[in-house]
């Protein structure tokens, strides 16, 4: 019996310690952290877009963490002007740091690609703007409609003839596609003027 108790207690103690250190301590340490400048809570549309991002599993190909200079070439690749900070994520209920870069990091996508037309075309058919891309197309976030049925409030997606629907049909973005775009536009790392001190320290 004592041997069994020893195994169970030892096993329990081991996991309890690491849980406290790796799951609870960071939570306490970061609980008072301030959002970085430019980081605000999500609006309704942005949150809706974020849910599309979660649901469609963009995380399996895109990270949202720019590594600071000195660790990887993220900044030299133009993926951000600075490394990401914990304060960039305070409003993220479900973190999307990611572990895979089949596609580029997106934590600062809004700075490098603000064009709505580009993003909508890219989501409808990535290969229409990035030849050779392996990113999935998301046609179900769009509707194909007769030009005459398009309402003034709707957003049509400009596409090259090769990818445009035939005849007098056009591609129109759904509410979800527009919301996803809105969410992507929240992904922006504003420069901080602390000389990168925290990049090294965090």
């Amino acid at each position, binding site marked *: 019996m004592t041997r069994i108790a020893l195994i169970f207690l030892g096993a*329990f103690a081991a996991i309890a310690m690491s849980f406290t250190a*790796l799951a609870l301590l960071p939570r306490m340490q970061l609980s008072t952290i301030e959002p970085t400048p430019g980081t605000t809570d999500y609006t309704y549309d942005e949150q809706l877009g974020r849910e599309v991002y979660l649901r469609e599993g963009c995380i399996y190909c895109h990270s949202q963490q720019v590594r600071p200079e000195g*660790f*990887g*070439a993220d900044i030299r690749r133009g993926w951000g002007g600075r490394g990401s900070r914990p304060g960039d994520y305070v409003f993220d209920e479900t*973190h999307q740091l990611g*572990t895979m870069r089949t596609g580029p990091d997106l934590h600062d996508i809004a700075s490098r690609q603000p064009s709505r037309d580009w993003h909508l075309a890219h989501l409808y058919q990535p290969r229409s703007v990035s030849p050779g891309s392996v990113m999935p197309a998301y046609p179900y976030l769009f509707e194909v409609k007769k030009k005459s049925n398009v309402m003034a409030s709707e957003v049509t997606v400009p596409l090259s003839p090769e990818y445009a629907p035939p005849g007098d049909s056009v591609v129109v973005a759904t509410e979800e596609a527009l919301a996803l775009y809105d969410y992507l536009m929240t992904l922006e790392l504003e420069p901080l003027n602390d000389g990168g001190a925290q990049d090294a320290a965090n």
Partner: protein
Amino acid sequence: MPDDASPGVPPDVADANADVDWRRVVDASTRWPVIAFVVSATAWLVIGSLLALIASFKFQFPDWWTHQAWLTFGRVRPAHLNTMIYGWISMAGVGVSAWLWARLLKTRLQGRWMLLLSAALWNLGVLVGTIGILAGYSRAIEWVEMPYVAFAFIVPAMLLVVASFIQTLWQRHARHLYISVWYLGAAILWGPLLVIAILLPIYSGIPEATANWWYAHNILGLWITPPGLAAAYYFIPKVIGRPVHSYHLSYLGFWTLALFYNWAGVHHLVGGPVPQWVATVSIVFSAMMIIPVIVVAVNHHLTVVGHFEKLKYSPTLRFVVFGAMSYTAVSLQGSLQSFRYWQEVTHFTHYTIAHSHLGVYAFATMIAFGAIYYIMPRVTEWEWGSKRLVSLHFWTTGLGIGAYFTALTIGGVIQGFQMLNPDVAFLDIVDDTKPWLIVRSVSGTLMTIGHLVFAYLLVQIVLKRGERPEGPTYFHPVPEGTFAHVGGDGSRSVRTPSADQDG
């Protein structure tokens, strides 16, 4: 007590020539729980393989099945991971563990109805979870994508397993607790604790990320790995017919694993926006994992040494030794990966995917196959239908995972170095990964064929189809005396048909 006098011997080997019958009684007591878990697991294995193939072929044909939201890469890929982790390897692990647990404690499995109920709940949970992910209800937290409701089935299912195991432990006849019992006992404590801890609704932002990787890595190390090691510790000495080389080493291996492993996971966030000390701690412990790994490797190697010829005959030994060697490889690789420089190159690339498959597949899955080849004839009192098909299963999966690992490792390292060089355009990197991803699809197809063969063999043996084959299933005719250490008079294989030897 003969048990305590020779602690390196699985207790039911220690008295190999004593009563055979208790083994039949104990094996029979595990019959329906083992069949329920192993058959369910294998169904998930097949489903998970098909999901994997869809995900993989999407890299060759990115415009294939894009109108069906539920088949988009970003849903199929987590569905694959979850069916494999919570469906296949968890359920196979429980099935194998239940059998080992009863055998090693020399006790009829207690609370069998709890295990049957558990299997039913478990299947429901994984089913609901997989459909949930495909239908767009993923939680988008890696390794915990299944919606909460799935865990409302899985957590009680796990607790039922715990209850049955504790009850069996309580009534055990074995005095000595063999090292496999340690691993299994610890795992059934760790598994539910891990899952409950990660379901707590207390995380967000960066702390959620550290908790996430604490969890994901530990599910691998503390829930999937221990049954694999327990099986290796049981089957290698058992089939070879000699005790574990050093029992002291096996204690050392256990405690170092228990103490070090659970700190290592956050190395997935090295270089990321986490407090520096978190990354440092996990690097240190990842490096220290070298100790338990070397200990286990040396111990198993010295057990097998001089008996390699037996790999030629015994399916169980072949799969299990393949798995044990992969454990050494994957763990050393894991320690290496935690070093900052190598992490800088390989993080975010296909190299990581290769690494995780070396762990979950080449190690855990291959050991599970080996264990199942041994266990099923004993619980069904029937034999495997075809040694040719067993052999086909071994070669398709063995070569498949070999090619898979090699291709993604090389492709991933190239990808990593290219990403470190800002002069290489991103689309060129994407282009250069394509050939390696083709190899992945081909090797994945090979492995899937192996899984279908295995599933077929399993259905055959459970339904007791065909002629009842004569003796145990070996790949080749076995020279006289190779496995004579058990069932010395030969009568045992008549009374209890078996894949390798004795009852």
